[in-house]
């Protein structure tokens, strides 16, 4: 028999998921704003709507980035450890 190497999955893989979603989010948001500006009725209301959406988005993304910065993204999950059902290091609430 042979021994499998102790593989580790970096936690930063979730940052890649976050980044991919951000690309989708930015694309969709810009497309939505383009629609509003292209087809909306000219006036103060239109600028207010675009400002509220952009402002809300900046607040939410800043908040999430601020929270994400709290964690150690160099941490990696050992596949062997993750296979154990009760692992208090990984999931302390279990």
């Amino acid at each position: 028999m042979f021994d499998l190497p102790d593989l580790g999955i970096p936690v930063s893989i979730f940052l890649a998921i976050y980044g991919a979603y951000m690309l989708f989010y930015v694309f969709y948001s810009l497309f939505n704003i383009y629609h509003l500006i292209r087809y909306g009725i000219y006036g103060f209301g239109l600028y207010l709507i675009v400002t509220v959406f952009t402002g809300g988005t900046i607040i939410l993304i800043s908040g999430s980035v601020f929270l994400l910065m709290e964690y150690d993204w160099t941490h990696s999950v050992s596949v062997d450890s993750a296979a154990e059902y009760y692992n208090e290091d990984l999931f302390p609430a279990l």
Partner: protein
Amino acid sequence: MMRLDHLPNQRPDEHVVLFMRRHWFAILTIVAAFILLTGLPLGLGWYFWLDVEPWVNGPVSGPIIVVFGSLYVLSVWLFAFIEFTDFYLDTWIVTNERIINIEQEGLFHRTASELDLAAVQDTTAEIRGVLQTVFTYGQVFVQTAGERGRFHFKNIDDPEHVKEIVTKLVEEDKKRVSALGATGHGKIKSTIK
């Protein structure tokens, strides 16, 4: 962007009489859905914080919760805004000569059509249900002689009043057209998809 004082294909002496969107109740629905979808999970997290805290502080579970929580909240915000855009871009413009119907269905489907007031044969206002009765909103159907000729003003404020104005404008436009002896009216002028 469109200007109400400079409509597409604006005719001489044409001016906007009514500019309509759906009733504000539609916005209330979007806001309520947004508050429910974001407030409920956050409220539960706050209430059960002692149970949730070890998960949030965990070296693996914490990043997972924050990443997917962020994606969830951003998705709800984006969804709410797309729904609002749909509301905002659905407009009905009644001028003294024609009706312009602009409907946005999602981000990738937009329909704009117009018809001459002289082509209108019948206008119907409909208020149905408790909410529509209490908040005085409902539907107005504008029927023309053409086979595609039915405009539907969806969930607009005070449909009875709108119906009265449209009926009055139709009568005035028919008189104007017969006085001019104009031809070429009587059907939906254009549809853009």
